[in-house]
């Protein structure tokens, strides 16, 4: 299950989608909006995305991670639009027969999502706002 959506993210169908009867472990990551960044108080975040490419890159991350770890399932959901403090922007779920692979693969998938999926966030403060510059994506030669 992969999606970019403006609606609140629901982990339940994602976990159901990645779990198989062979799964002994599911690792689920929530990226949530926190009230502070680099010492500045954040009012809310605004996410933008190149939706079609973001979906494609999410699937590529999943394929990469599945090729590296013995997984039974993986899924990624990203929310865009305006998100308030405490709301979930990203869900990454990974299932595997044993817990070690689930944790490692989930962590790696989240890292890769942040490095390659074209999504942007703008922090809005009381006295201004700024698009956050995170990773410059790598060009595969």
């Amino acid at each position, binding site marked *: 299950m992969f999606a970019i959506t403006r609606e609140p993210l629901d982990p339940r169908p994602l976990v159901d989608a990645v779990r198989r009867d062979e799964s002994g472990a599911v690792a689920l990551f*929530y*990226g*949530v*909006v*926190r009230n502070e960044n680099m010492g500045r108080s954040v009012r809310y975040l605004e*996410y*933008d*995305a*190149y939706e*079609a*490419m*973001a979906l*494609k890159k999410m699937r590529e991350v999943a394929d990469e991670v599945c090729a590296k770890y013995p997984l039974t399932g993986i899924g990624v959901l*990203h929310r865009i639009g305006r998100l308030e403090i405490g709301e979930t*922007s*990203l869900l990454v779920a990974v299932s595997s027969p044993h817990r070690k692979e689930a944790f490692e693969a989930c962590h790696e998938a*989240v890292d890769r*999502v*942040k*490095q*390659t*999926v*074209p*999504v*942007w*966030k*703008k922090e809005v403060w009381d006295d201004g706002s700024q*698009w*956050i*510059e*995170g*990773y*410059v*994506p*790598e*060009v*595969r*030669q």
Partner: protein
Amino acid sequence: MPEIHVRLFAGLHDLVGRRELVLSMPDGATIGQLRDRLGEEYPIVQPLLSTLVCAVDEEYVAPEHVLRDGEDVALIPPISGGS
């Protein structure tokens, strides 16, 4: 002259005030030249150009990529998804 369909996101979208635009580029022009051209037409985006990566048909490409007529180019500032 290839006509290039350009997509703008995040800070570029805010500064240019448009989500998409079409630029006519000389034959044999590259992504790097498209980027320079954008800076000429919209000087306000100059500070963003040095960290800009481009994507053609939903894949990141190098500045040396040669543009073809009708190509779909997305201008990708440093990404910051997740949380």
